[in-house]
């Protein structure tokens, strides 16, 4: 029997080790992306993998995202499981057609004959002081696309476990990596079981349910701690899977708290927060004491980095949302009342 060992790894290292294990365990697994070879990717997530597995399995791709994803589709037809790295969130759009029209649909389009076990790894989100196109949160585009699974880990353990589950899944998976947490360390048990289906209750609470994912989970946890000092008990849920969403877990919490706050970095309009608010309202209408509250990025392009602290939901804005859910008077009470 394998001995279970837990190591302290950064989130980036946890992903690296998941890729390594996937490459070891299944010789149909390939990595394809820009600069993932000698450089190890711009975030060093694939560090050392080309050296150890060869350039036949860890492939530097020409600079073309549609090409990368379309090539992975052909490889899937041939039985390969390709893990593509998209260098930054903002560079996935040239590959959008291949994702939406091919990757997402081919299993359906072939009546189940062809599988598309492709994993698209995408560092996403802001907060790293980057230039434009490097801080986006495009997850809702993919969550709205039938045939794709969309997931996002918030810590090294989940990053490791979920990535391995994503690669092993016969469904295509968009794997959004919270880039500003790449360097955050945490314990990782590489043999821990796990899936890409379930949300996690991160902090138990009774007054308000705070649902989020990715980099904001840490912020939400801090918000819960701060609120606790004021006697407000927040239950923080880390969604982990963004499509589908584990509504059973969310619902269980909201039936208890009667109040829901949802937070994401992505723009609000027609974002995931809307789906969560709508679905939870459908499922828990009679349990809700207040309309679900959204605390999100603004409906502007991601701003220049000097402004990102305002754009990004932070602890204060989350607590403001919690106040609103609790119908405590605050700056926005007017808005929700007489809007």
């Amino acid at each position: 029997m394998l001995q279970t060992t837990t190591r302290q790894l950064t989130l980036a290292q946890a992903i690296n080790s998941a890729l390594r294990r996937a490459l070891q365990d299944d010789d149909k697994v390939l990595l394809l992306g820009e600069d993932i070879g000698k450089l190890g990717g711009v975030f060093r997530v694939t560090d050392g993998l080309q050296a150890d597995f060869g350039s036949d399995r860890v492939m530097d791709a020409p600079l073309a995202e549609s090409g990368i994803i379309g090539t992975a589709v052909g490889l899937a037809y041939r039985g390969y499981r390709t893990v593509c790295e998209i260098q930054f969130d903002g560079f996935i759009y040239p590959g959008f057609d291949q994702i939406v029209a091919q990757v997402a649909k081919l299993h359906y389009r072939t009546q189940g004959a062809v599988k598309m076990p492709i994993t698209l790894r995408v560092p996403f989100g802001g907060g790293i002081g980057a230039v434009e196109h490097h801080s986006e949160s495009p997850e809702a585009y993919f969550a709205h696309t039938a045939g794709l699974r969309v997931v996002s880990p918030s810590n090294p353990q989940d990053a490791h476990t979920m990535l391995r589950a994503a690669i092993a899944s016969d469904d295509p998976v968009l794997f959004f990596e919270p880039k500003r947490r790449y360097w955050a360390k945490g314990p990782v048990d590489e043999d821990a079981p796990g899936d890409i289906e379930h949300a996690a209750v991160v902090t138990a609470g009774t007054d308000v349910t705070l649902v989020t994912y990715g980099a904001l989970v840490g912020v939400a946890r801090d918000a819960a701690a701060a609120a606790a000092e004021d006697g407000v008990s927040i239950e923080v849920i880390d969604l982990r899977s963004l499509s589908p969403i584990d509504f059973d877990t969310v619902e269980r919490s909201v039936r208890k708290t009667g109040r829901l706050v949802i937070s994401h970095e992505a723009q609000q309009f027609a974002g995931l927060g809307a789906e969560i608010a709508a679905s939870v309202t459908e499922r828990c209408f009679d349990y809700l004491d207040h309309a679900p509250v959204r605390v999100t990025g603004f409906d502007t392009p991601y701003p220049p980095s000097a402004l990102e602290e305002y754009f990004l939901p932070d602890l204060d804005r989350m607590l403001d949302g919690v106040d609103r859910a609790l119908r405590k008077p605050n700056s926005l009470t007017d808005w929700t009342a007489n809007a």
Partner: protein
Amino acid sequence: MPTTVSKDFRLTESHIRQEDVVQLVTPAGARVANPTFDPWVDDVGADQLASFYEDMVLVRRIDTEATALQRQGELGLWPPLLGQEAAQIGSARALRSDDFAFTSYREHAVAWCRGVALPDLLRMWRGTAASGWNPYDVNVAAPAIIIGAQTLHATGYALGCRKDGVDTVAIAYFGDGATSEGDVNEAMVFAASFQAPVVFFCENNQWAISEPVGVQARNHIADRAPGFGIPSLRVDGNDVLAVHAATRVALERARSGGGPTFIEAVTYRMGPHTTSDDPTRYRDPDELATWQGRDPIARIGLLLEGLDVDVEALDRAVNAKADETARALRAGCVALAAPEPLSVFDNVFTGPHSWLDRQRSQYAAYLAQFDEEA
């Protein structure tokens, strides 16, 4: 036929010049000697030519029948291949059964040569399924309607073949219009970069719906590939033998580690773009007349006559087969029934899915309501 591409065989600049479009049989049915390409078809005797002829006649009949079925409301749409039989059959008949074809929507003859069953040709056009066949049964992918997307799939598949250490080849079929799409160019970049064993087979039928090829390209389509480091050939797409020879060259290059090759088959879309189209709005009828003079079937008939084949007898046999095929196609078509409503939820994912499974159950409950009412 040579079993290897000799080191000396280079696709030279001249192969991609208009003057040098590879032609082995003239429209009048005369065999033109070609020292470069003749060896590649030296095993193609009268029998095989007759079987090409048969395939061409059969698919033309299938095409005509499908067009009729559409007019009669049995199909939603049909994109005729009329005029492109030689390009498709000459190339598809050069494939090995393990080779894999990635086509667009017009390659009915490719599907036919690969063994797709008759009614399966029609499923997607009748709307009873998103695509007609299991790709792995015939090694033909689901047809790509998104223009050009399949060229990348072929490249990826070919790369996979190389990784598997087999000499299987992927072939991508696409049109002249498709060459404008980024994907087709990216496919050439990737194929060249990875030296993937893929054949890019462009049927330049002169039109992309209403746009003449001049809107897409000022040069010959075949001129583009060499700049990507991919040798290219320009071949008379209405000459089944020339297409066959060129495809064999390209396949052999790929099998022997020579990487990708690009073939431009110069042909003509004699019919409308699809049954919804009206080419009289944009096309000079004289142009059609000119190309009718280059009909791919007629010239093989003439060639066979020159080879002392009893073409009249052949025609009788082939036409009888064609009649039977058309009947079978029609019968198969009308027998294609709509799938049951809840199948709309099938095969979105490979296993359980909390959201979709719930949606499916809800819809089942909704539908059950009507059964109760009835």
